């Protein structure tokens, strides 16, 4: 929501200073017509207090209902309505408070100056309205510009991530290097790894086009990925994948879990020297698919305060775009184990 100009202390000060000056002038003018200071003060405070209130209300109304361009007639009507209201109310209160024999000259004076008062009130409220329309238009524009910048930055990041995701150069070249080593020492395993790598790359390429895939398929490509990492790192990596019967048939956005598992490998395997186990468990709870990925981490080099990186942020963003919910990804760390939990609401076409 845009700020009102009256929320900015500089403008608020100017606003109040203006009313003090204006009330003072008003007071002087009434004195000039020969009324007592008391009468002049009461008249000035009541009329200008009401006018100031009306200006405040108009500013707030415009904050929520800024007219479209060329509809400024509504603003004029609004100002006219408020000036009539202020005048009627002012006349009523002044009549009540100064209706005393001591002020008998005042009541006709009040009636005589009705049109002048109305005119001044109308001009004042119009002034306030013009200032507010200019202010809010500018604020809105600034907000739009900010939003546009944010959106552009996000799409740029996403594009970069997608490129990296497609290539995964580090993973790819290291896998090829492992195959190169195996060709001499263990040709059978080398061939096996070429098949795994091809299947994984094919799955990555194909899935870009599809909207939703079965959990089973997603798990298969994750397993391929983990198998390749196992060949690279030998006995250091072991995996535990648990899933319940129902979950395999449920649908999820493709490659949603890949960045999560990559993250687990990055902190769990690339950045530790001990043997590690990466656990993936998939279950269904109240029509929600619940996926947890657990990896050990080294608190010395990968303290959680360094953030979760772009990998997990992209998962959060995708889930937000799909389900408009921000509570679907949770992370926690305990006893040097980092846990990522992802909840995926049921997709409509699950029934078919």
């Amino acid at each position, binding site marked *: 929501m845009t700020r009102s100009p009256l929320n900015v202390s500089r403008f608020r000060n100017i606003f109040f200073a203006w009313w003090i000056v204006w009330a003072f002038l008003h007071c002087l003018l009434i004195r000039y017509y020969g009324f007592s200071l008391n009468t002049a003060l009461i008249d000035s405070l009541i009329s200008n207090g009401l006018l100031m209130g009306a200006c405040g209300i108009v500013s707030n109304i415009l904050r929520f209902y800024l007219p479209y361009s060329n509809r400024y007639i509504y603003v004029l009507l609004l100002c006219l309505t408020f000036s009539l209201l202020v005048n009627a109310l002012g006349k009523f209160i002044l009549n009540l408070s100064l209706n005393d024999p001591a002020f008998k000259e005042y009541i006709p004076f009040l009636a005589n100056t009705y049109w002048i008062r109305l005119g001044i009130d109308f001009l004042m409220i119009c002034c306030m309205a013009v200032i507010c329309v200019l202010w809010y238009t500018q604020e809105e524009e600034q907000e739009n510009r900010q939003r546009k910048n944010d959106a552009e930055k996000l799409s740029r990041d996403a594009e970069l991530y997608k490129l990296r995701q497609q290539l995964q150069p580090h993973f790819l070249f290291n896998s090829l*290097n492992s195959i190169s080593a195996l060709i001499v020492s263990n040709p059978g395993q080398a061939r096996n790894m070429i098949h795994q790598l091809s299947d994984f790359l094919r799955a990555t390429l194909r899935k870009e086009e599809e909207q939703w895939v079965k959990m089973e398929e997603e798990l298969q490509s994750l397993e391929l990925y983990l198998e390749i990492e196992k060949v690279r790192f030998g006995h250091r990596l072991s995996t535990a994948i648990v899933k319940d019967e129902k979950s395999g048939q449920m649908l999820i956005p493709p490659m949603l879990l890949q960045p999560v598992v990559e993250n687990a490998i990055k902190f769990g395997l690339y950045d530790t020297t001990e043997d590690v186990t990466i656990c993936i468990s998939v279950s269904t709870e109240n029509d929600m698919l619940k996926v947890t990925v657990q990896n050990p981490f080294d608190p010395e*080099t990968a303290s959680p305060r*360094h953030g979760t990186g772009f990998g997990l942020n992209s998962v959060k963003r995708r889930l937000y775009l799909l389900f408009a919910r921000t509570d679907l990804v949770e992370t926690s760390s305990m006893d040097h184990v980092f846990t990522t939990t992802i909840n995926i609401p049921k997709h409509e076409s699950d029934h078919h």
Partner: protein
Amino acid sequence: MKVIIIDDEPLARSIIKEYLQFHPELELIAECNDGFEGVKAIQQYQPDLIFLDIQMPKINGFEMLELVEDPPSVIFTTAFDEYALKAFESHAVDYLLKPFSRGRFDKAISKWLQTGKNISGKEQLGQLLKTVSSSPSEQHRVVVKLSGKIRIIPVEDIHYLEAADDYVKIHTREGGFLKNKTMGHFETILNKSQFVRTHRSYMVNITEITRIDPYEKDNHLAILKSGARVPVSKTGYVKLKSVLGL
């Protein structure tokens, strides 16, 4: 001549081993799984040449080299690291891109046998380390060695830095650690909105400051949460005030 291989992937080591069989003049004396083992092995065996992977757990290849007092000749091996490749190119240091052929490997060895053992190789390596230690991956931690043990200090844990001859003393909650670097180096790698050079010989983590007291003419003292008192010069005070938004 003695050779050591340092790589966290067993298969990557085995391929170098395989290629080394064709170079009987080179004797493989150790294989290391990570940078920690690498530092130990280099000190123990004083090799003539090491094959060094860059991406390794906990400390990377460059950080490992910084911990070695008199590093041997290095042939870097890496799969993909744009930042490092640029540094290699600009400092004419030899490297092997995985997967590499035996032909490429032999070429690197013969180049090293011809030229690598002279002094200029060492100088290039020093220059290279200077460049890469300002790489993004090394900006959130500092690796130091204290009585043989390697410590990784996250930059948030640094209270202040103090120049001490050719070293910089890094003060943390657990005491001071010496690092063979200049203050200028830390000034380039540390986040300028968190670390301020308050004095020719001092740099302070502003999140640690509790108050700033006047001290002698034109000078100030920053009092840290730990109770340490860090000198602030006249120009340092101006910098400190602008970073703190005073």
